[in-house]
């Protein structure tokens, strides 16, 4: 326990060190007399932009809108991926049915669907959530399938010689044995959700973090652009940390460390 705490604090210190170094270098560069603040706004400008957007409420509105889209797309996409991925990875016939389709669709970047989605569904909330859902589903389902296919045969044999039916083997052995892969799928999906969120909001949105980015570009508010980028980074980081906590809890049995 003691050793672990030491390990963690060392980790936090070293992690902060690299972030602090980047900030220090940035501060140094922007403090030079020949710096153009329109391209590289000083840190104080970025903080001011944060404060104005925070107090005016526009930042929180944008954050709320974006988090809603991410959550909706992530939950729907990963749930579909979990159900379908488990079935595809376990039942041969379902695999034969869906595998060519998934393999054909997989290399297409989710953003490529944007024009089609706009044509079909317009530029409303549904379209934005749909893009995120597709992105989450595609990266997650591949991991779930891989997990189901990597279940060691000896576990299946052990369960069936103890009298487990095929479905019981699926439920009590294959799915738990695949959890490390499934969790990885969820984490990759979370990253994909953020990537596609900003892209979908850059194209068509009246609010959200991507919209604030777009607004910053249009009115040459470089400090606002910088500020939003940091907000996105921070949010994604916090979400990933929460996810790791959940992962550590679910994976207590596993030998692999975080």
């Amino acid at each position: 326990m003691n050793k672990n705490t030491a390990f963690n604090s060392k980790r936090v210190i070293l992690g902060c060190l690299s972030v602090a170094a980047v900030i220090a270098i940035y501060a140094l560069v922007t403090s030079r007399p020949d710096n153009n603040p329109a391209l590289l706004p000083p840190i104080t400008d970025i903080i001011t932009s944060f404060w104005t957007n925070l107090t005016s409420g526009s930042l929180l509105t944008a954050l709320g809108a974006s988090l809603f889209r991410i959550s909706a797309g992530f939950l729907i996409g990963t749930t579909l991926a979990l159900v379908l991925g488990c079935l595809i990875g376990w039942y041969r016939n379902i695999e034969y049915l869906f595998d060519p389709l998934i393999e054909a669709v997989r290399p297409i970047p989710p953003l490529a669907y944007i024009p089609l989605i706009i044509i079909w569904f317009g530029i409303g909330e549904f379209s934005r959530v749909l893009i995120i859902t597709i992105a989450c589903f595609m990266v997650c389902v591949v991991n779930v399938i891989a997990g189901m296919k990597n279940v060691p045969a000896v576990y299946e044999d052990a369960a069936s010689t103890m009298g487990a039916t095929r479905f019981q083997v699926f439920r009590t052995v294959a799915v738990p044995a695949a959890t490390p892969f499934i969790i990885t799928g969820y984490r990759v999906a979370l990253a994909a959700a953020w990537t596609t969120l900003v892209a979908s909001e850059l194209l068509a949105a009246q609010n959200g973090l991507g919209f604030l980015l777009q607004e910053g570009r249009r009115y040459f508010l470089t400090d606002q652009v910088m500020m939003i980028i940091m907000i996105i980074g921070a949010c994604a980081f916090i979400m990933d940390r929460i996810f790791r906590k959940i992962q550590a809890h679910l994976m207590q049995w596993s030998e692999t460390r975080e």
Partner: protein
Amino acid sequence: MPEIRIENLTHTFGKGQPNELTVLDNINLTFESGSFNAIVGTSGCGKSTLLKMMAGLFAPSDGSMKLDDQIIQGTDRRRGMVFQQDAVFPWMTVSKNISYGPRLRGASAAEQREIEAKWTQAVGLKGFENRWPRELSGGMRKRVDIGRVYANDPDVLLMDEPFGALDAQTKERMQSDLLETWGQSRKTVVFVTHDLEEAIFLADKIVVMSARPGRVHHIEEVSLPRPRTDAMRLTDEFIQIKRRLWEMLDH
């Protein structure tokens, strides 16, 4: 009580193809109720294949296997198996592993507790009930494996080199403990190993197989009295059997 009868069993991998390979050739064997049987032979004699067929994990290409005059088809809880590899479920604690079989059949929580308590005790894992398998040594994980199969109460126990990966001391200890557990219920056991001493120490009957294709070469009846003790390993009778069997194996 269960009796296993194997009649004219032949198994060919890739039958009908140019590279077909006969691994088992015309095997005829009977394993009597409540007896402890061992199958020995060098690698490639098909002993593991034979055992997996008895478990119902796959079917022979010719001939039949019967348990109490019923043809063996598919897996069944009556024929429990302990594998060479580690088959303990790492996502379940020791006691959850032990009660896995009864839980499949909807045992109540109280029944599960009772079975867990009985078998963790019986296989020497008291105090480790709530540990994860990763926290146990290889020998202890094998104990979980054996306890889990026993807790499932099969009629026949099929064991595929279960102690193959353990060090010599642990192995001898496990053998004695296995005999003690077996002595209390006298299930029919078929134990595959390549270790002659292990076979002699454990079994009433030893089937010696020859390789490529696997055939029954010799059947040795071991008349050492029970209960067996470690001291017997050094008796003249024990060593004579070992020498006789050793000369039979293809080296």
